[in-house]
């Protein structure tokens, strides 16, 4: 009960899954959204980009999302981007929720 009442979903939710810069965090399972801030290598199969996760930057493999552009958000899983986030689909879903629950939300 406590977790729900205290709104624990709000803060520090992903503390443990934020990829750390030095690569010392070697857990594999969690997918985290991050922003593509720069390409490092665009060689097919070896492509890499710098991804920013809430202020932390990390080099990630991009072989499965080679068409991503700088500024796009991707989901990174085990050091590799697994998809590009569809902004239109995200906005549409949030808009539906806001209309349903009359929330201002955050942008």
């Amino acid at each position, binding site marked *: 009960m406590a977790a729900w009442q205290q709104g624990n*979903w709000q803060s520090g939710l992903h503390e443990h899954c934020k990829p750390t810069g030095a690569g010392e965090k*070697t857990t594999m*399972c*969690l997918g985290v959204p991050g922003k593509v801030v720069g390409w490092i290598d665009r060689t097919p199969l070896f492509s890499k980009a710098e991804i920013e996760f809430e202020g932390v930057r990390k080099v990630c493999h991009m072989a499965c999302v*080679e068409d991503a552009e700088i500024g796009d958000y991707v989901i990174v*899983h*085990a050091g590799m981007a*697994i998809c590009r986030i569809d902004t239109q689909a*995200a906005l549409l879903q949030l808009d539906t929720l806001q209309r349903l629950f009359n*929330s201002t939300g955050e942008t």
Partner: protein
Amino acid sequence: MKYLSEYRDPKHAHGLVDRIREISTQRWTIMEVCGGQTHALLRSGIDEALSECVELIHGPGCPVCVTPASAIHNAIHLSMRPQTLVATFGDMLRVPGNHGSLLDAQAGKGNIKAVYSPMDAVQLARKNPEQEVVFLAVGFETTAPATAIAILQAAQLKVKNFSVLCSHVCVLPAMKLLAASKQNRVQGFLAAGHVCTLTGFEEYAGFVEQFQMPVAVTGFEPTDLLVGILEVVTQLEQQQANLINCYPRAVKRNGNHSARQICEQIFDVTNRRWRGMQVIPNGGLCLKSQWAAYDAELKFSLSDVDQQEIQTECRSGEVLTGTIKPSECSAFGNQCTPQTPLGAPMVSTEGACAAYYRYRNNNSD
């Protein structure tokens, strides 16, 4: 847009919880398949907020937890071999095998290194040409593409001292096994969103048709989870069974085309023993014969030791199939803690036992 905070809006969360409570005429039983979803549900308290109308059963979607003892046995065996280095994800190191963990082996003679991705293991092999580098590849369809890319990179770079001990697993065959079980109590599923990011969700249509249960492809933030639960409860109340994608920002019907192509190039589907469960038909991936040079099982003539799990007080098999909650195991929180785990679900960042210890154990920090 950060694609995080927007999905933690308390107004949305409370509105969705209220809606689920309003429409429920009975207590429904829903399984969230992925361990990442289990952690998010417990961390946010969604399971308790909905306890009167929804029982959430935690599924087997923790690849660390279902990796069989034989894979750990083989990895330890290889790590003791001269001029051989075993690389794997950090999550795997503390998982108990029948004769200790990889971490125990590392403290002895085992040569083991944690890596962030299989591609890092290829780089290790390039830097250490005198060593055989074996990557213990575990994980669902989400991590399989990275293993496939590592093999393709090694082939292109002509790295011959790299190989893969392949223990990848596929989630849908396990869902089928659970749904077909006579003991099954699950009435609807939250499918693992990130697996579907890669695979797409078309193949789930057959599952819905066969078992007549609603399936919602669901993400990992509180709003995502509640949207998935609301969808499944709505269908159950209306006696419907449909497949719906509640994670459209990340999941497309056909998944990630590049990743699927890469995986099809490297892997065949195979039967695979899941820890705590049984051999699951088509429940795993193995390397296609043309990639035999990178298959550690063949390269080092490893026998497929079908090790029986050593019997302990640990009931992780029942936890993994959703038969019991972690706290119903007598070892939970006593002999079995994250510091002294008896079973893999207490070790893994996605394990249900670790989630209960962290979020539901009054003695924990």
